[in-house]
C-alpha cells in the first residue's frame, strides 16, 4: 500500500538522522572512568572482588562508586539520586550489582527505574557453556537480545468488568527497529554468523507481525549476517534438545525474558550468567542478574563470577579485548581447576579465596 511505503520511507530517513552511534567506543588510551553501583546484599563484596581482579590485571579502569536508592523528587516522582544520574551520563558505562526492591516501598523496582531513566532498550545476555561447570548441556554458545522497554511489560492493565482483566501488549515500529538494528550491529561487531527473530506471528498477527517486518527490513540492510525467523515454541523445543544450532536471538520483551532465563539455566544458572543493558545516547550498564542473597551477605561466601563476566562483557564493549580475554581466561581456568570454587559451584572456598585464585592466574597470564 502506498501509504505504508511512504511512512516507512519517512521513518527510515528520520531514523538515519537520529541514529545514535551503536559502534562500541574504542578507548585506546588513558584511564576510563566507569560508574560502579555495588548494590545490596552480596553486591558490595562481589564488587570489591571485581575491582581487585581488575587492578591485578592492570585494566585501565577507574571506578566511581554511586548509590541508587530511590528518592522522591519534586512533584512526588520517584527517581534515582541526581549524583548517580550525573555520573552515569558523564561516564556512559556502568557496572551494577544486584539491587533489592523492598516490598512495600511505594516505589517501582530499582531495575525498572534505571531502565526508564537511561532508556535501556536492549538486554543482551551471552550464554556460553562454562568448561569447568558441568551441566547436561555442553555446547551452548548463543546470545539473547531482548527488547526491554515495551511489549508485554508495558504495565498497561485494566479491569473491564468485575472478573475480566485485559493486559495490553504494545509493539511499536520505532522500538522494534531500534532493537533489530542493535541485534545486527552486535552480530557484526562480535563475529556472529546469524540472527534469528523469535516470534508468535501465527497467533499475534499484527503485533509480532510488525516486529518481524522490522527485523526483515533490518536484515536487508545487513546482508552479511544471515537472518531467519522461528516460532517461539519451536525455539523452546529445539533449545532443550540441541542448543548448538542457535546463534544470536532477537525478540520482544516477554519471549526474551523467558528465553534468556531458559538459556541461563542451560549453562548453570544466574550465578554464572553475564548481562548487559544498552541504552540510548551510548549508555551501557552491565549487571549481574542474580538476587541479593541476603542470607549469605557479608559472610565471604558469594560467587563473583556473574559480575566478573559482566565486567568482561563491559571491557569488550569498550574495545579493551586484550584485558577482557585475560580476565575471562583466568576465571574459566580457575573454575576448570576446581581447587578454589565457592559453595554454589560445588566447592567450599571463600569468595576471597576464589578471587585470589583468579588474581594469581591473571598474574601468570600477563
Amino acid at each position, binding site marked *: 500500500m502506498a501509504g505504508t511505503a511512504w511512512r516507512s520511507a519517512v521513518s527510515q530517513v528520520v531514523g538515519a538522522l537520529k541514529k545514535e552511534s551503536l559502534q562500541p567506543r574504542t578507548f585506546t588510551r588513558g584511564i576510563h572512568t566507569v560508574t560502579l553501583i555495588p548494590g545490596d546484599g552480596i553486591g558490595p563484596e562481589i564488587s570489591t572482588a571485581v575491582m581487585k581482579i581488575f587492578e591485578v590485571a592492570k585494566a585501565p579502569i577507574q571506578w566511581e562508586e554511586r548509590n541508587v536508592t530511590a528518592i522522591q523528587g519534586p512533584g512526588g516522582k520517584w527517581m534515582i539520586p541526581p549524583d548517580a544520574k550525573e555520573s552515569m551520563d558523564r561516564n556512559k558505562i556502568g557496572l551494577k550489582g544486584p539491587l533489592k526492591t523492598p516490598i512495600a516501598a511505594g516505589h517501582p523496582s530499582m531495575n525498572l527505574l534505571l531502565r526508564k531513566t537511561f532508556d535501556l532498550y536492549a538486554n543482551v545476555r551471552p550464554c556460553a557453556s562454562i568448561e569447568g561447570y558441568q551441566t547436561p548441556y555442553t555446547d551452548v554458545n548463543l546470545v539473547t537480545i531482548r527488547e526491554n522497554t515495551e511489549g508485554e511489560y508495558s504495565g498497561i492493565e485494566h479491569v473491564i468488568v468485575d*472478573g475480566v482483566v485485559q493486559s495490553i501488549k504494545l*509493539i511499536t515500529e520505532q522500538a522494534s527497529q531500534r532493537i533489530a538494528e542493535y541485534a545486527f550491529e552486535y552480530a557484526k561487531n562480535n563475529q556472529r554468523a546469524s540472527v534469528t527473530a523469535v516470534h508468535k506471528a*501465527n497467533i499475534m*498477527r499484527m503485533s509480532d507481525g510488525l516486529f518481524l517486518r522490522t527485523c526483515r527490513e533490518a536484515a536487508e540492510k545487513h546482508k552479511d549476517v544471515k537472518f531467519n525467523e522461528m516460532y517461539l515454541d519451536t525455539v523452546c523445543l529445539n533449545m532443550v534438545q540441541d542448543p548448538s544450532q542457535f546463534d544470536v536471538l532477537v525478540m520482544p520483551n516477554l519471549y526474551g525474558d523467558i528465553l*534468556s532465563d531458559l538459556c541461563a*539455566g542451560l549453562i548453570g544458572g544466574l550465578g554464572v550468567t553475564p548481562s548487559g543493558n544498552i541504552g540510548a545516547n551510548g549508555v551501557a550498564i552491565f549487571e549481574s542478574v542474580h538476587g541479593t542473597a541476603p542470607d549469605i551477605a557479608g559472610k565471604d561466601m558469594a560467587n563473583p563470577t556473574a559480575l566478573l563476566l559482566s565486567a568482561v562483557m563491559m571491557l569488550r564493549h569498550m574495545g579493551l579485548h586484550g584485558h577482557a580475554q585475560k580476565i575471562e581466561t583466568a576465571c574459566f581456568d580457575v573454575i576448570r581447576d576446581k581447587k578454589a570454587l565457592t559453595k554454589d559451584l560445588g566447592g567450599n572456598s571463600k569468595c576471597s579465596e576464589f578471587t585470589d585464585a583468579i588474581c594469581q592466574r591473571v598474574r601468570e597470564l600477563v
Partner: protein
Amino acid sequence: VNVYFNWSLQPPPARYGGRHTVTLIPGDGIGPELAKHVCELFRFCCVPVDFEVVDVDSSMASEDDIDDAIMAIRRNGVALKGNIETNHNLPPSYKSRNNLLRTTLDLYANVMHCQSLPGVRTRHRKIDIMIVRENTEGEYSSLEHENVPGVVECLKIITKTKSLRIADYAFQTARAKGRRLVTAVHKANIMKLGDGLFLECCKEVASGYPEISFESMIVDNTTMQLVSRPQQFDVMVMPNLYGNVVSNVCAGLVGGPGLVPGANYGENYAVFETGTRNTGKSIANSNTANPTAMLLASCLLLDHLKLHDYASMIRRAVLSTLTETKLHTADLGGQGSTSEVLQRVMNAVQSTGPRTLSM
C-alpha cells in the same frame, strides 16, 4: 464442594452396532500420512471406530472448511486432528484455523503428559509432568489493533470464570490420577492484574483440595528449573502463552515432538492431536516422521471413548516398539522409517493374541 464445570465428560454414545464415529482432520505437512497410519492400525486391530474425514484447506481465505470441520465435531463429539498450517504473512483477517477450532468449541483445557519413555535417551531421566494449559483465552484472544501507524496493541484477556475452570480441571485431574503437587506458572510480579487474577483463582480452588499441595512459580524461573531439575514438577497449570512455552520445553526434555500426544477437552467435545502441534512441513511425505505421538494420541482417544482394552493394547505395542533403537526415526537420532515402525507395532499387537485382520 465447588464444582466449576461438568467433570464427568461423557463420551458420545456408540451408534450403529457399537461402533463410534470420530471426526478425522488430517491437516497439513505430516498430518495426512500419520492420519492414514492411524486408520490402517485401527482397521488392523478391528477397533470399533469409523472415521469421518474432513479436509481443511489452509490456503483458502474462506472459513467454510473449518466451519464444516467444527460442525462435524459437534455432530460426533470427538475428533483426531493434525495441525493446520497458518501462514503468518497473510493479513490478520486470516485467523489461525487451529485457534478458531479451539475457541469455537470451547476446548478450554489442553492436557499434555510428558514422561520419560523407556528406550529414548535424553539428558534428564524420570520426568513425569502433567501440563494443564488454558486453551481459549489469554494471549491467544486474537484482539489486536493499530490505533496510530506504527503502534500496535495486542490484548491479553484473563477472566475469573475461565481461570477458575482451568484451575479446577487441574486439581480434579491431579486428584483422579493421585498426583501430589500442583504448580501454577505465572508472571504476576509484572502483570499484576492479569496474572494476579489467575493466581488468585488457582489459590481459591486449591483451598478446596487440602490433600494436594499447591505452589506457584514465575515463568522465567520455571524454565530455568525445568532445564536443571525437571523432576521437581508434578502437575502444572498456567495461562495460554506460558503453556505454549512450558509444554514445548517439556516435550523437548522427554525426547522431542514425535513422542508426546496432546488432548484438548471442553465441556462437550474432545479433540486429540500431537502435543506440540507441529505441521512437520519439511519432512512431509518422506516416510521419516515419527508416528508415536499420533498413535499415542489415538490411544487417548480410545480411552476417552471408554475402549480401554484397545487403548492399552495399542499403547503397549507402541511403547515396546520405542525400545527398539534400530527402528528409531530421524528425530530420535536413528534412520528408521515410519512404515517400519508401524509394521513393528502391528507385529507387536498380533503377537499379543487378540483378533486382528490378516496382514
